[in-house]
């Protein structure tokens, strides 16, 4: 088991390194920050001087090597825009993003599991139809559109929730819901289909034959087994949720990593982009590892020896 984890961690390091290389060269392929940072009246000579001073005139591999040497010490450089060390800037925004994404994930699970189970146990009925319609809409509606519609309805028309920003519990409702809806749709479908599968298994028939009540059969026998794939999917979806958070944080001006990163990308603030990519990639890799380990623990059939 230990060797397995060590191996996975070693792979994780390679993955993060690969992601950093790709993101480094991709951001540089689309230009450098000189013109964005200088006032509009800067002349060609002044722009060149600025690029030389900040090291943007050096060949890309040289710049990447310089970046890598510092990065292994956890130093991603000083943000061009904020004048502060970039890693702490990102870390300081993690709690806001975690609050948003974890709320969204819980919201999705709490809604999807009962809906999926009900749909599976009452297959073909009105609840099933409703659940599948919700799933269809949830997966096909773009979340930025949904977010803006929610602002118009819940904040402007009905005055129930604040329009944007971070503050109390009320502030998290709309952005979390906007992120959750897509995942919820996916999970509802998943729970429904695995439940249908489980309910036709032999052990369920045996349980029913023993005379157990249907509710007991569903909740104690079928559901726990149906939830195993849910764990994997939720884990794998975490990366998508972070991606969704970038859009949703921007719409709601939610002060998290996503908003900060998108601004850094637009401003070509490389140190911040690199720090953000590192943090986000690490988070995704670690969560996937945790999910795999959890899976092993949950399902003895795939335990590695």
């Amino acid at each position, binding site marked *: 088991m230990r060797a397995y984890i060590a191996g996975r961690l070693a792979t994780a390091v390679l993955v993060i390194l690969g992601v950093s290389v790709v993101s480094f060269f991709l951001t540089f392929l689309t230009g450098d*920050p000189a*013109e964005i940072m200088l006032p*509009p*009246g800067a002349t*060609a000579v002044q722009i060149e001087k*600025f690029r030389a001073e900040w090291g943007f005139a050096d060949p890309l591999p040289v710049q990447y090597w310089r970046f890598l040497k510092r990065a292994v010490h956890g130093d991603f450089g000083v943000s061009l825009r*904020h*004048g502060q060390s970039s890693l702490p800037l990102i870390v300081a925004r993690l709690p806001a993003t975690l609050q948003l994404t974890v709320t969204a994930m819980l919201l999705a699970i709490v809604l999807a599991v009962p809906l999926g189970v009900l749909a599976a146990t009452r297959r073909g009925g009105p609840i099933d139809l409703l659940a599948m319609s919700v799933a269809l809409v949830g997966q096909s509606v773009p979340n930025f559109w949904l977010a*803006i519609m929610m602002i118009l309805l819940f904040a402007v028309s009905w005055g129930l929730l604040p329009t*944007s920003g971070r503050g109390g519990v009320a502030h998290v409702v709309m952005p979390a819901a906007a992120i959750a809806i897509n995942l919820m749709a996916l999970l509802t479908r998943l729970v429904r289909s695995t439940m249908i599968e489980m309910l036709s298994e032999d052990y369920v028939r045996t349980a029913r034959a023993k005379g157990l009540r249907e509710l007991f059969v569903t909740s104690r026998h079928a559901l726990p087994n149906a939830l195993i794939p849910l764990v994997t999917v939720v884990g794998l979806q975490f990366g998508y949720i972070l991606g969704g958070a970038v859009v949703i944080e921007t719409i709601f001006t939610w002060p998290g990593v996503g908003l900060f990163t998108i601004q850094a990308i637009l401003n070509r603030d490389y140190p911040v982009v690199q720090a953000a990519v590192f943090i986000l990639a690490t988070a995704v890799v670690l969560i996937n590892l945790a999910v795999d380990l959890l899976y092993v623990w949950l399902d003895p059939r795939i335990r590695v020896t």
Partner: protein
Amino acid sequence: MDPQALTRRDALRLLGLTTAATALRPGLSAAAATGEVKIGLAAEPNTFDPHLTVGRNSQIFIANVYDGLTARDGQGNLVPGLAESWKRLNATTWQFTLRKGVKFHNGDDFNAESVKFTLDRATNPETKATISSELSTIAATEIVNPFTVNVTTKTPDFLLPVRLGELFGLMLSSKHTAAMGKEAIATKPNGTGPFKLVAWTKNEKLLLEANENYWRGAPQVKTLVVRPILEDAARIAALQTGEVDLIAPVPHVRIAELQRNDKLAIKTIAAPRIFHVTIDVRKPPFDNVKVRQALNHAVDVNAIIKTLYFGHGTRLATVVDKGALGYDPSVQPYAYDPNRAKALLAEAGFPNGFETEFDSFTGSIADHSKPAEAIVGYLQKVGIKAKLNVFEFSAFGPRRVQNTTSPLFIYSIGDAYLEPSWVIRWLTQGGLGMHYKNARLDEMLTKIEATDDSKKRAPQYSAVQKLIKDEAPFIFLYQADAAFGMSARVDYTPRPDETQWLYPLRLKG
């Protein structure tokens, strides 16, 4: 009787109003600041260190905490700031006489030493000042006495007093800066300005409080809560729900709808951003002035303003904006006349038009790609087939630096100084894809730049505008309006230089 004439009663009314206004004035400035106003802006400053600001969004805001040596009034005229007066002693020396009795927020005195420290810091390469290009003419700052400084420039710089205004001449306290260090100034500024920064949570909010001892008199509003709200729809929603009282900007597409809401007021002002298409005059057929004039006749700029900006823009005859010194409205824009354009093309030897390329870009502070599409469409109608290349803004920059732009490219320049000479010099610099040169224009500008008195400078710009219009080194376009939205609680009049100067902001009633 002429209905316009002033009647005796009108005269009496006017007299009464003037007397009342005079009587009220000292009362207003002596009153203490009260109340709170919440503001939603599309962006927040990147820093409060005036030498490391990035982007106009930072520069137009941090002046609320600092003062420059010079300032602008509500009409955009240059007025005294921390300097009471200034004069050019010789071609390369400006003398500033400083205001006495001004204190920084922490109680430090403002004096000649503050000016020397600030300008030395801004021009010191170790500061890596992002705004250094705007102050690059400064050679040295010399203290004459505690309230007089001489600033010498490497070459004659008639614009120095303007440069040392609210965009690039914000004054720092030497003691505070030395004590706090570079990183701390970014978030804990100590200026002489109308507001003090009390707290700042990046991406969340800025809390500013009135400086009761402000030398112009305390501002009328005690507390400002500024929230960055990036998304247009969310920012407008925040105004509609009363979460904030003032927002900027309001996108043009939403202005009409919000104007119908009687709980809100929308105020627009022509922003000093000059949209234009640069023509590479070195490359045939654009070396022929008739071709360049044909391009100007071919594009229906008014239709572009009407459809893309919903009418919230100003057609410009040249590259001189409406708010700039010496703007001459008698210089009329090229009329939209495709037949005239075709005739000019035929005269130039291109009766069937020609093929060329046109660059535009996305992702900058303003939308350039949609107007570019419209322009390319209009050119097509007179037989000029322009292939449109669209770049990401930061990828377009290197093309300009390397002078590899297409013969035509759209761009816009913010006339930060409201001074045509500065804009025209930049547009004719011989780099960044801009290659128009004209000895007579150069001579005219040199003469203007030797004139320190702006009142004498202004009329000289008429001839410049006529010449540029006739020479047509650009397709002249427009400037768009900046729109501010506000609730019935507040009153705010935007300034023509784009600055979000909140000192005159007041609560109604």
